[in-house]
């Protein structure tokens, strides 16, 4: 047995310090955002800031308990914790209370608790346990299925509660999988698909297909084709374009220019693909496939957007992408949020001097839009510091995860970083108008017991795991 150090000497105090700073900043900003001259004391428990103080005290107690528990407790009980949470997520569908159209709350006495918040650490534990189990190989199909089940079962249950935002958080685990060896292609395609999605809606078809073709051509030329290959490919493009345009013209321009271009892209892409396969030019075939796939995706995005989305969803997306703007309607929240943050200037209006947030122009100013209060009262200086604090915390978590000797701890650590990152990126992005309005809280900042406790548990389990990184865990060979 190696020497066992006390938890308190091995604990990463930097992370604990960052955590304490963030919850403190969150608390005073909640105080400011709902500040009321009738209830001036920050300790007044009839107000949100007073309640948040209670949540913080409870969270610190929880953190302490987590730290004094044995590390092996988390490893051994991973699946059991996960199972309990899954049961709760099912149970809430039947006996839950509906708040803001989401049936995702248990109400016990005066308290409401949201089991979805606790799904995050449970899933992280289960995933860490599974992926660190003996003989686990990511490349196996079975592994994919099980990982998919572990991650998407809670996500699906949360989706059933009509809480889309919390469900989307589970996409964050892709970062963990990437770290554990998932091909970078998936990450690349994730980004590529997201870009295509945006561009399909923002750009005219002509421009988009032009861009895709140009991009394909550049990659093609970069592969250093022979003169003959070049002429064949170029010829295929030109011939198929004139063929389709001519046929369309002959039949009285039945199809629009955009449709002709789509047809041209698919036809020429298909012909290049066949040509490459015949000539066994694997790289060219690959480009042609991506090209065809991209065109098909953009067509289906257009279709899905027009035919499948509800008008309010279309409005939110249009607003985000700047296609149509309606500051009084779908864009109201984001517009007011940007006004609040933008009016803060470099140094802000000062503590308790925010007008936009305090006078309710910004909705949900103490929960999802708490970042607006930071922006308005502390200015760019404040927001930038908060962003930096989060970046330092996230980087620190990755560094800590990397120094783990056990796979379980590392995977769990990456899960914590990925989940926090997703929350921070989406929440702050939403308030400054670069992300759609998905109601998820800003970790440690937003008002609310469930989210504060869930992030505390999530983080402190990792701090506890890290503190005993020198111990032999059961999964160590």
């Amino acid at each position: 047995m190696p020497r066992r150090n006390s938890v308190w000497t091995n604990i990463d105090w930097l992370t604990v310090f960052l955590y304490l700073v963030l919850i403190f900043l969150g608390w005073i900003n909640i105080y400011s955002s709902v500040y009321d001259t009738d209830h001036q004391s920050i300790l007044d428990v009839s107000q949100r800031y007073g309640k948040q103080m209670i949540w913080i005290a409870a969270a610190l107690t929880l953190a302490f308990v987590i730290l004094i528990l044995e590390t092996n407790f988390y490893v051994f009980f991973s699946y059991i914790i996960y199972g309990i949470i899954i049961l709760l997520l099912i149970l809430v569908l039947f006996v839950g209370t509906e708040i803001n159209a989401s049936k995702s709350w248990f109400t016990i006495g005066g308290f409401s608790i949201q089991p979805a918040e606790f799904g995050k650490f449970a899933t992280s534990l289960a995933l860490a346990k599974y992926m660190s189990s003996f003989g686990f190989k990511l490349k196996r199909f079975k592994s994919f299925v099980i990982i998919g089940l572990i991650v998407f079962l809670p996500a699906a249950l949360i989706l059933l509660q009509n809480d889309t935002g919390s469900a989307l958080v589970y996409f964050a685990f892709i970062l963990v999988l990437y770290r554990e060896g998932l091909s970078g292609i998936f990450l690349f395609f994730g980004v590529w698909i997201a870009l295509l999605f945006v561009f399909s809606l923002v750009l005219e078809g002509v421009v988009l297909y032009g861009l895709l073709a140009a991009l394909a051509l550049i990659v093609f030329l970069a592969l250093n084709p022979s003169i003959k290959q070049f002429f064949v490919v170029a010829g295929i493009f030109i011939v198929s374009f004139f063929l389709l345009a001519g046929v369309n013209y002959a039949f009285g321009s039945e199809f629009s220019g955009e449709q002709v271009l789509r047809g041209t892209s698919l036809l020429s892409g298909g012909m290049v693909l066949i040509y490459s396969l015949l000539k066994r030019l694997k790289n060219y075939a690959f480009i042609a496939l991506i090209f065809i796939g991209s065109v098909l995706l953009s067509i289906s995005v257009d279709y899905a957007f027009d035919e499948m989305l509800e008008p309010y969803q279309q409005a939110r997306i249009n607003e985000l992408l700047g296609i149509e703007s309606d500051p009084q309607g779908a864009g109201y929240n984001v517009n007011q949020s940007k006004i609040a943050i933008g009016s803060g200037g470099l140094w802000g209006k000062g503590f308790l001097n925010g007008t936009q947030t305090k006078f309710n122009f910004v909705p949900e100013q103490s929960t999802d839009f708490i970042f607006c209060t930071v922006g308005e009262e502390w200015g760019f200086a404040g927001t930038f510091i908060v962003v930096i604090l989060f970046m330092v915390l996230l980087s620190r978590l990755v560094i800590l995860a990397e120094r783990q000797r056990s796979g379980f701890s590392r995977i769990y650590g990456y899960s914590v970083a990925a989940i926090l990152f997703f929350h921070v990126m989406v929440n702050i992005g939403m308030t400054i108008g670069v992300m759609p309005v998905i109601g998820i809280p800003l970790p440690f900042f937003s008002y609310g017991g469930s989210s504060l406790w869930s992030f505390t548990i999530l983080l402190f389990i990792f701090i506890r795991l890290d503190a005993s990184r020198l111990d032999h865990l059961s999964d160590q060979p």
Partner: protein
Amino acid sequence: MNSFSKRSYVIIAIFLLTGLIYGARLFRLQVLDPTYKVYATNNVLRNVVQYPARGLIYDRNGKLLVHNKPAYDLMITPREVEEFDTLYLCNLLKIEKEEIERRIQEARDYSLYKPSILIKQIPPEKYAVLQERIYRFKGFHTQRRTLREYSHHSAAHVLGYVGEVTAGNIENDDYYSQGDYIGQSGIEKSYEEWLRGTKGIKKYLVDVHNRIQGSFLEGVQDVPAQIGKNLTTSLDIELQLYAEKLLQNKRGSVVAIEPSTGEILVLASAPAYDPGLLVGRVRGENYAMLLNDTLKPLFNRALMAEYPPGSTFKVLNVLVGLEEQTITTHTLFPCYGPATVPIRCTHNHGSPNDVVEAIRESCNPFLWNTFRSILYSAETSAEGYNIWRDHVLNFGIGKKLGIDLPTELKGSLPKEEYYNGIYGAGHWNAMTVRSLAIGQGELGVTPLQLASYCSAVANRGFYYPPHVVKEIEDGSLDRELKTKIEVGIAEEHFEPVIEGMQQAVEQTNTAYLSRIPGIAMCGKTGTAENPHGSDHSVFMAFAPRENPQIAISVYVENGVWGTRYAAPIASLLVEKYLNDSIADNRKWVETRMIEANLLNPNQPK
């Protein structure tokens, strides 16, 4: 160790890149782009206008004529309204339940969050009762306004009235906004700029529901309202009241001017109305009533009615003759009474007459000869006419006098071209336009012009443009009004004419009703021909003869001869002004004038 540990750098890079992008975005939003700061200000700042009280109006002796009384608008903010005792509100404010519901719906349609006026101008008595209970009416509050109040039921035409601004007012002057009050006639209109004061602004912070949360920056940017300037008019309210009393049950007007300054002492038009009728909630109803009244009480005859000057004009014609030297004080013209051609004389007197006698007796033939001599003194009748016309213009007849009241007619004094148009150039002469010799025909003067012309005679050759405001609190009175205007007649020509005017008052049958013991009043009666009924009684006079204190013109419609009504009314006013009271032996004249009812347009000859 895990073979993919290098990927930790990729993941950290993703984190930091996101942080960097957000940092840049925040920098642009918060530091570089100023537009959001403007939006934020628009979001939270509400400017609440502070209405100043209008300036007060005094008479020449410092007696208060117009002041302000508070009134309260009941405001409603529909969103904040809860169940309330409709019946109580209806009973207190004397308003139908359906009406109040209709108005609440209107307010709701306008805006749920912004306050609208539910009931305008609640008088203070009712406000006191309402204010005690208003806490029970959630969503209601009161807003203080000021309304005009008048110390005397008098001088409505001079003082004018205020009303809500029209769309046109708002467009022409960006000082005004919807619901403001503006002077719409009389002094209230012409001195609006001084009387209105300056609106102030209080800046409040409001929340998203437009509810006031407190003052902005503790009020350092607030601009207090400045109350309007007080005005001192030249009116003598006692004399004005007396004039209105004398004119009761008659149509007509009195204008009295202090000749040495041009200050208007009295400007009365009958029938008149009580200025208090056009104030407050009853205004709309009363205005319609006054507008539809067949006696036209809103019509200001003193400035807007054109009458022929009649024989009062003879004074002017004689003065022109003397100045142009077409007659002298020794000139005698014969009079053959009703047999005289081309204008017969209806007055019974001797012959031949000189200037003094002609004025005293109002001799038509003398004036015809004088007028003819003026027109024939030049090469052509038209040239002679223009010489004559210029003299008349110099007396302020045929042009606006520039009084400081919004409505004024210029009277009627035809140009040469007018007669050329009718008779053809060179085809008319003194004979053709002979009516002008005796103040009839195409001539038209307003009572104001007659009084002003009379004050020029009283001053022996000059006058000041008549005006009703003597002084503005801050001393910024238009100097233009004080400019002395010479009428271009040598001073010596006035004495014989004035002698004739004094004799006209004291030695003819006019003396019977109009001679004032102890006061040398110089006057001239007239009869303005009226094709629609009995002729109008006209009189102009000034007194005392030396160092005149008052010049006056009186028109009494359908009063037939000047001697009958206009002259006695003028004499009573002059007596009252100079002596402060009416001599006991003239009380019967006063009674007779007050009791006379001439509202029937056809009076016995």
